[in-house]
């Protein structure tokens, strides 16, 4: 899923123009007003006042639905949307660390946190083709669930009785005495890294009983606790699935030119220097 922030007074109008131009399923996300500490308020808009439920959903026979609830951050929302949508447009979240376009006037305090893909004077003046191209070139929001969903949709899925996955994440501590790791920054040899991952993917997929293999590695800064890398295998049986997942992550770590710099509460260092 490609994610775009739209910031500025004309953001909603640009989102409206952009949605039909995007090739795929699009979700828009807007901020709800801060509801303060009013004790009589319902837990969330759409929930009945006084309801103890944490979520409420309505589902129609034609597949239409509405939902409301509490305890969900913007990051949680994006993770939830990633398996189901090709694009998420965040209208009016300057604090979100996502690629953004600024629409209309001086953004003032609304300067976006993420990379700015463009600044346009008003919604009508935006070059939608160019913006779409830039958006498609940004790093997609990928979750384990979005990859699992993709292999399940494979035309070969009917021959497959197993999905095995590996998730690599940022480990804050190796043992209790360790200075806490706060983030890892990944540098990738673009082009070559993709080629090597594609070679691994193809060679694993060629194995008997292995139907689909997906590998994904994030780049940039990944804070502690977040996911870094996924390997997902769709296979006929669990044996092939487990072996392909293990070989996939081992080969990725050995062969793909990606470099990791670790930031702890005390220090900053390239990981290969410490290992060597």
């Amino acid at each position: 899923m490609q994610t775009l922030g739209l910031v500025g007074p004309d953001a909603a109008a640009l989102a409206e123009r952009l949605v039909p131009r995007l090739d795929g399923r699009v979700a828009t996300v807007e901020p709800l007003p801060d509801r303060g500490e009013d004790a009589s308020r319902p837990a969330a808009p759409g929930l009945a006042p006084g309801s103890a439920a944490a979520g409420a959903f309505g589902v129609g026979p034609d597949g239409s639905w509405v939902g409301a609830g509490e305890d969900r951050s913007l990051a949680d929302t994006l993770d939830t949307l990633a398996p189901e949508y090709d694009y998420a447009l965040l209208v009016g979240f300057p604090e979100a660390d996502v690629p953004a376009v600024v629409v209309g006037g001086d953004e003032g305090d609304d300067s976006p946190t993420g990379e700015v893909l463009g600044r346009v004077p008003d919604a009508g003046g935006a070059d939608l083709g160019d913006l779409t191209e830039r958006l498609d070139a940004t790093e997609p929001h990928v979750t384990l669930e979005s990859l699992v969903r993709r292999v399940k949709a494979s035309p070969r899925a009917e021959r497959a009785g197993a999905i095995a996955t590996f998730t690599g994440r940022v480990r804050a501590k190796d043992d209790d005495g360790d200075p806490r790791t706060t983030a890892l920054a990944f540098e990738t040899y673009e082009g070559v890294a993709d080629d090597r991952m594609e070679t691994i993917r193809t060679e694993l997929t060629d194995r008997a009983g292995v139907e689909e293999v997906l590998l994904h590695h994030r780049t940039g800064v990944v804070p502690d606790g977040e996911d870094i890398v996924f390997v997902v295998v769709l296979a006929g049986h669990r044996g092939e699935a487990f072996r392909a997942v293990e070989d996939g992550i081992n080969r990725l770590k050995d062969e793909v030119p990606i470099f990791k710099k670790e930031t702890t509460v005390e220090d900053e260092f390239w990981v290969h220097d410490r290992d060597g």
Partner: protein
Amino acid sequence: MEWKLFADLAEVAGDRHVVVPVDGEDEGTATVGDALDALLEDRPALRDRVLDDDGELREHINVLREGTNVFNEDGLETAVDAGDELALFPPVSGG
């Protein structure tokens, strides 16, 4: 000839991309070794990082020409063309 440098090698050299003139690059007689010599001449700080006391390339340093490890070709004797992309990096550490 253009070198791409990664991780601490880029920090030591002061740049991620370094363009250096290499003797013979336009005549088709230059090798990866020639290009490496030209790089280390241009960025002397890199020398101790990538070469050992005998002046040999340290074992863990990777050299790629057009995405292929040159030690799967003819090593530092591998021929290079003026348009080739060369890369120098430490052990990979993804995941």
